[in-house]
């Protein structure tokens, strides 16, 4: 009588194959989602191009995101800020007319957040700007993007490594960033 394991393996092979393929499929599916549907560059209500504004015309970030240097949140420019320029500039472009619709109806523009931190994170733009951290460090080369997209998911690891490199005072204390 044999104690060989081979016949058993023969029997189990099909089941094993099914399982294996299933697993591979799982991994693939997970990867595919991240790769093809990342949701890192959502469709905004108006196709605002940072490339044109920040890139070609070299408008400084702080000109529109005026809050960044003195508040926790960088803030997005209010509608009238956009209109100030676009009353005269490129008024014929369809996207600008979209903007003007908002302005005439006195409606705010529902921009979709690209970089979004969880509510338990305390990230004061103020401190980082005043410390001379370039916006691009976290937001990526926005001035080259026609459509802004999140470069990397903003994770705790990045904050930590940056805090370490620049040896931020108490940069590794939990309560420095968490609330």
């Amino acid at each position: 009588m044999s104690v060989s394991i081979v016949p058993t393996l023969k029997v189990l092979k099909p089941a094993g194959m099914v399982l294996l393929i299933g697993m591979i499929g799982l991994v693939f599916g997970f990867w595919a989602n991240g790769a093809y549907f990342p949701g890192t560059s959502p469709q905004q209500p108006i196709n605002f191009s940072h490339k044109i504004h920040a890139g070609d015309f070299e408008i400084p970030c702080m000109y529109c995101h005026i809050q960044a240097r003195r508040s926790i949140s960088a803030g997005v420019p209010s509608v009238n800020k956009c209109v100030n320029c676009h009353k005269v500039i490129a008024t014929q472009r369809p996207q600008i007319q979209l903007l003007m619709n908002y302005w005439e109806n006195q409606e705010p523009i529902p921009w979709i957040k690209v970089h979004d931190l969880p509510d338990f994170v305390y990230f004061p733009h103020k401190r980082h700007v005043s410390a001379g951290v370039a916006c691009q460090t976290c937001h990526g080369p926005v001035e080259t993007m026609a459509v802004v997209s999140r470069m990397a998911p903003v994770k705790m690891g990045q904050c930590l490594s940056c805090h370490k490199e620049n040896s931020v005072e108490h940069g590794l204390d939990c309560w420095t960033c968490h609330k």
Partner: protein
Amino acid sequence: MANIDRRDFLKLVGAGSVGAGSGFMLAESIKHPVEYLIPAVIPPEDFSPGIVTWYNSVCGMCSAGCGISVRTREGRAKKIEGNPAHPVNQGRLCALGQAGLQVLYNPDRLTAPARRTHPRDSAALGEANWEQITWEEGLTTVAQRLNELREGGQSDSICLLSEGVRGHLASLFELFIAQLGSDRLLHYDFSHPHSLYAANQRFFGEQVLPYYDVKNTRYLLSFGADYLGSWISPVHHSLGFGHSRQGQSGFRGQFVQIEPRMSISGAAADQWIAAKPGTEGFLALGIAHHIVSSGHYRGADRADWAKSLQNYSTGRVAEQTGVPADTIAQLADAFMGNRPSLAIGGGGAGSHSNGVDTLIAVNALNYLAGNIGKAGGLAFNPIPVAYPTAAILPHARQANYRKMLALAEDARRGKIQVLLLSGTNPVFSLPAAAKFQEALTAIPLVVSLSSFMDETTAMADLILPSHTYLESWGDDFPEPGVGFSTGSVSQPVVSPLYNTRATGDIILALAHKLNLSETMPWPDMKDYLKAGWREIYRRGPGQESFESFWIALVRAGVWGEKTRRESTGFVPDKQVVRNIGVTPPQFSGDSEAYPFILHPYLSIGLHDGRGANLPWMQELPDPLTSVVYGSWVELNPATAERLGFAEGDLVKVESPYGSITVPVYLYRALRPEVIAIPIGQGHSEYGRYAKDRGSNPIQILAPQMDTTGNLAWSATRVRLVATGEKVALVKTGGTSRQLGREIIQTTTSSAAYNAQDSGRIPLREV
């Protein structure tokens, strides 16, 4: 694996696709939800996201008139704190004041004008039978009716019943009613110290409250006044209390509390004396007698005093009050011994049939000890020339119980055609015996300007909801002042949440509809306010322009001028001295059938019931019992044992005028023949947090009045009837005994330290 047949192949494909699908879903499920970033269209100039803005204003939660600073971010009020620049509260604020945010953001606010659809006597009150209307409609309806009455010469049938307001809103009310040709303007607050005003009128000859300088006093004798909890200006008194006790070197202020049931002032006191309810006056005179007879007092009118006090020898007073004679003597000596001393009276002691006498006796003590006009005694507030007329005597319009009865009577007789209600809730805060609710049904048109659906508003035909105090312009002149003229301006700290209007704006809008524009030309309350303050600015020593004065004023939230009043030379009228004396207290209900005396008291969190719709206040454990959500009746453990009651037993508290059912709480510091019930709960309307919770002791009070027609609300006799039911009191406290664990450690006063290095924040000299 060379040969795969069809079935195997399908299996594998299936497995692969299922796997891929689930993997995809898995990744999808752990994704961030979409969030929006919505900018303002045109940002207001003082608005920037993430940056805090503070607005100074005035607290509207009680009549103390504390100054507040409201912390706002992204246009929303986040926190209320005391205004450090305000002399009354100097940056501090009580629990109720801080809960003001929940008045603003209360989920049960009235959001738009509404008209009653069903007749008022129909059983169902509340939301069910209201229909929304526009402001235009609402105002026109009222204006037309008022106009008819005015033309028809029935102006006097128009009545404006408001909560106790001061400053320009008060004067606006005056103006409005006057313009309508009526004189029916009443303020009603349950806790208004009528008897104190009366007593001061009789003794000092003026109907204002003096400034009680707790801060500098060395010995405070309080007859029933819960000055730390609910009496007149708790926060200011607390500041003074802290300073007098530990704020100054050399001595530590002594505090004595005389009351049948220990309040937080009693708990804080060095000595708590439970005199028989209603006999506080005797005690005061007993002390006075000892002061005079023992030669402490050396005034010219000594003889008169001796004469009028002869019936109040410590011995007799001892048996009248149940306080040992030597204790009385000791109090008297201490009172004279550590001057400046101060005697105050009010609360329960002032609300007996002999309340006014009692408070006069208390005033007499201050006089005998020479505390009048002294720092650490009581100082008379200046009558400020600069104040708007109506604000000079906010007491003048206050309706005591007799006046309210008269109003109800007139209403029943059809003498009232239109009743404008603003802020006050008499249906809740008047005894059922007053039959005020029934009276309301007799009024053809009842208009409520309240922000909430309270019991009285539920009786209205028309609701014109007003802003909360955090959304409207106004000002206030605290009464009593802090010894010098002071006023404060309140401003909207957030843009209005709902389709409501400021009370002042509503009144002005009505005025315009009634073509009173020439006498009341101001478009809205803010303009009226500015006009009024322009006047003050003109009279005052104005250097800079009014605009800059106004801006500075609104920024600071408070304004004052250091004008003190010299009144040391005060000598009471001979007649007054001759008539000094206290009549024995009368209690309604005979002592056989109703063995207990009901002692209602203002709850710390809910005050007279206005706080009951604020979840924070409902969840604030009562300092003395730690009970939350609901009301209770306090029994002395001995009494409870005699009657066989334990904590949580539901008992029926019956007075000759009604009964309420409340659970028992065993309270150690309470006279055996007295039972105490907190005021504030027991609303039948007033929003989800207040509705149908606990019971309202005011309802069962006897219509017992003192000589001046004030409700003697601690002079009702009651009996307890067991219901056999038992409930679990909701409270935080476990066992309130230390078991020798030295959690709260004490030291003898001999070990009191000198305050130089105490590190205490020095109290600003006011």
